[in-house]
C-alpha cells in the first residue's frame, strides 16, 4: 500500500511541479531567456492569494482570475520595457538582467512581507479523501486539477489560436516568422506575459499547500529548472512528464534512501539527463 500511496503522492505533486515549470519552459523555449525571476513571480502570486484571502476573504479560485491578467500585464511590460533591449545579446546578458530583476523583486518582498513564513489556511479546512489506506488531501487534489486545467489551456492556446501559432512559429524559426509578417517583438512580450501569468497562477495554487516566504523562490526556480531539463524544453507534455518524473524520483528516493537524499538524487538525475539525453523526455523543436 505504501507503494500506491507514494505513487499517488508523486502524481499529484508532479502536476504541481509541471505547473511551476510550464511558464519557465515557455519563456526559455520561445525567447531563449532563462528567466531567473520566475521563482519570485510564483512567490508573488502566492502572496496575492494569501493577501486576497486574508484581507478581502477572496477565495483562491477567484484569486486565480485576478493573478492571470495582472501578472500577464506585468510580464508583458517588463519584456517590452527592459528585456527587449537585450534580447539579441548573448544569453549571459539576459541571465544577468533577470538575475538583477529577481534580486530587486525578492528583496522588495523581504522588505514588505519580511522573511517570516505565512500560510493560507482555508476555513473550514478542506480535509482529505481516503480510499482503502490511500489518503490524498483535498486541497492538493483541487490544486492539481487547476494545474492540469491551466496546462490544458496553454496547450489549446498554442494549438488553436492565431497568437499561439505565431508563438510556435517564432520558436521554430524566428526569421521565417518575420518574413511571414509576424510581429516578433509583440510575440516575445506576449510569451513572456504568458510565462509570468502561469507563474502567478502557480503561486496561487502553491499558497494552498506550501508556506509562503520570499525565500522559497529559489526552491521553486530550482524545481522549474530540473523539470524543464527532465521533460525537455518546448513542450507542454514535456513539462508534465518532467514534473511527474521529478516527484517520483524524490518520493521513491525519500523512501528508499531517506528524505535527506531526495534532492541530491533529483540533481544526479538532472546531470544524467544533461549528458545522456539533453533534449529531455519529450523535447521537440516546436512548442506544442
Amino acid at each position: 500500500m505504501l507503494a500506491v500511496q507514494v505513487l499517488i503522492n508523486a502524481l499529484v505533486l508532479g502536476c504541481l511541479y509541471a505547473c511551476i515549470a510550464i511558464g519557465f519552459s515557455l519563456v526559455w523555449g520561445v525567447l531563449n531567456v532563462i528567466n531567473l525571476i520566475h521563482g519570485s513571480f510564483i512567490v508573488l502570486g502566492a502572496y496575492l492569494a494569501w493577501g486576497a484571502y486574508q484581507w478581502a476573504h477572496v477565495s483562491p479560485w477567484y484569486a486565480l482570475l485576478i493573478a492571470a491578467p495582472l501578472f500577464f500585464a506585468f510580464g508583458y511590460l517588463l519584456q517590452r520595457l527592459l528585456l527587449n533591449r537585450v534580447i539579441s545579446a548573448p544569453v549571459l546578458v539576459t541571465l544577468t538582467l533577470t538575475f538583477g530583476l529577481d534580486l530587486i523583486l525578492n528583496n522588495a518582498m523581504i522588505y514588505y512581507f519580511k522573511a517570516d513564513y505565512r500560510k493560507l489556511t482555508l476555513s473550514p479546512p478542506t480535509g482529505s479523501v481516503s480510499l482503502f489506506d490511500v489518503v490524498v488531501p483535498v486541497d492538493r487534489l483541487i490544486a492539481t486539477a487547476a494545474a492540469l486545467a491551466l496546462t490544458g489551456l496553454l496547450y489549446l492556446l498554442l494549438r488553436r489560436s492565431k497568437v499561439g501559432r505565431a508563438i510556435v512559429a517564432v520558436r521554430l524559426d524566428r526569421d521565417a516568422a518575420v518574413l511571414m509578417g509576424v510581429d516578433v517583438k509583440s510575440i516575445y512580450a506576449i510569451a513572456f506575459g504568458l510565462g509570468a501569468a502561469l507563474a502567478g497562477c502557480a503561486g496561487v495554487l502553491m499558497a494552498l499547500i506550501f508556506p509562503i516566504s520570499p525565500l522559497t523562490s529559489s526552491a521553486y526556480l530550482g524545481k522549474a529548472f530540473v523539470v524543464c531539463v527532465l521533460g525537455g524544453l518546448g513542450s507542454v507534455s514535456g513539462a508534465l512528464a518532467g514534473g511527474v518524473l521529478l516527484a517520483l524520483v524524490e518520493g521513491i528516493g525519500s523512501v528508499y534512501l531517506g528524505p535527506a537524499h531526495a534532492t541530491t538524487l533529483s540533481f544526479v538525475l538532472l546531470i544524467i539527463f544533461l549528458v545522456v539525453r539533453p533534449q529531455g523526455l519529450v523535447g521537440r523543436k516546436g512548442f506544442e
Partner: protein
Amino acid sequence: MYRSPLACISGSVLLAIASLSASIASAEDVIRFGAPLPITGPLAPEAVKQQMGYNLWAEEANKAGGINVGGKKYKVEIVYGDYQSNTPRSVQTTEQMITQDNVNFMFGPFGSGAAKAASTISEKYKVPTIAASASSSQVYDQNYKYLFGTFTPNDTLTTPLTQIIKAKAPEVKKVAILARNDLFPLAIAQEMDKSAKANGFEVVYFEKYAINTLDHSATLSQIKSLAPQWIFITGYTNDLLLIRKQMADQQMKAPVVTMIAGPAYQDFIETAGQSAENISSASWWHPAEQYDGKDIFGKTSNFVKLFKAKYNSEPDYGQASAAVSGALFQLAIEKAGSLDRDKVRDALASMDVMTFWGPVKFGANGQINSLEPPVFQIQNAKPVVLYPEAIKQGEFKLGVN
C-alpha cells in the same frame, strides 16, 4: 570681522579636538554588545524572538541607569548584524563587530551550528560570548575559554520526556524519529534515539530531512506505514508547522507526537490550531517557573510581567534566554567591576547565582549545568508543564489526531 587664516585653522583644530573628546567621553559611557542574528532568511522568526529578549534587558538596564562598573554607570547598547540565516556570514558578522564596530562583549548567533562557527572568532579575539540558543555538546566540546551558554545539554530534554512517556503510556513501544539535517535538531534527535533505546523503546524509523524541504508527503507515508505509537520530529517552527499540516493531510494519528523546538512558541500554537492539541515537547524554561533571581529582573513572575507589558504576549524560552544572557553579562561586569574582557570572563566562569531563568552555574566547558528544563504538552491551546514536579500544571494526555 577679519580673522587670520591661522586663527581659523587653530579654531577648527580646537573644535575638532573638542568634538573628538566629547565623542570619546560618550563612547566611554556605553557598553556595546554585539548580537549577530538571522534577521532575514528562514530563521528570521527565531531571530526576532532573541531580539525581543535582548531589547527588553537593555531597556530595563538603561532604565535603572545602566550597568554599574566600579561605581560608574554605563548605558547598554546592542549592535545588531543580520547574517541572513547564512552560517558562514555569521562568522564574518562576528569578526566585523569585534574588529570594526568595537563591541565590548558578544552574544552568540542563533542556534548551535552558527554559535559554534562564530565562537572560533570570539575565542581568537578573547571576547566573552554568551550563546543564548546553543545546546548541542559539540559547541562546548571545543573547551573554549570565552564561550558560555544558557541551554543545558540536549539529553536533559529527551531523558525526562522519555521517562514520562514510559511511565504514563506503557503501551507505547515503537518510536519514529524525523530530524531536520541541522546541528541542533539532529543532535537532539540523536539524544532521543539513545534515550528511547535506553528505556526499552524500539526505534523503527530514524531519518533526516534536508533544510528547506517543501514536501514531506513520501516520508510521512512511510512513517505511517510503520505504525509507530510515538512520532518524534525535530526542526524549527516553520518546518514543524509544515510537517504537522502534511501529517493531518495524510490523516496520521499516534498516541504520542513530540515536536522540538516549536510548540513552546505561541505562534506555533496559534498557527497549528486544533492540530497542536496534545503535542508534547520540552524546552529550557517556562513562564510558570518560580525563581527568585538576583538579576535585574528578579522573580520569574516579574520578568513575565515586564515582557507582557512591552510585547503584549507571553514570553517563551528563546526570548527568556536572550534576556537572561544580557542579565548575566550585567552581573558579571558588576562583579568584575571592570570592562576588562578577561576579568568579565573570569566572573562568568565562577558565576553561581539564582536568576529568573533558574540557577546559573557554568561547567568547565562553558555550558550551563545547573538547570532542570521543563517538559510540557499543548492542552486546550496552552502549554501545560508536566515536569519537574515543583512546577507541574497537569497530567500527560494520550492521543494526537
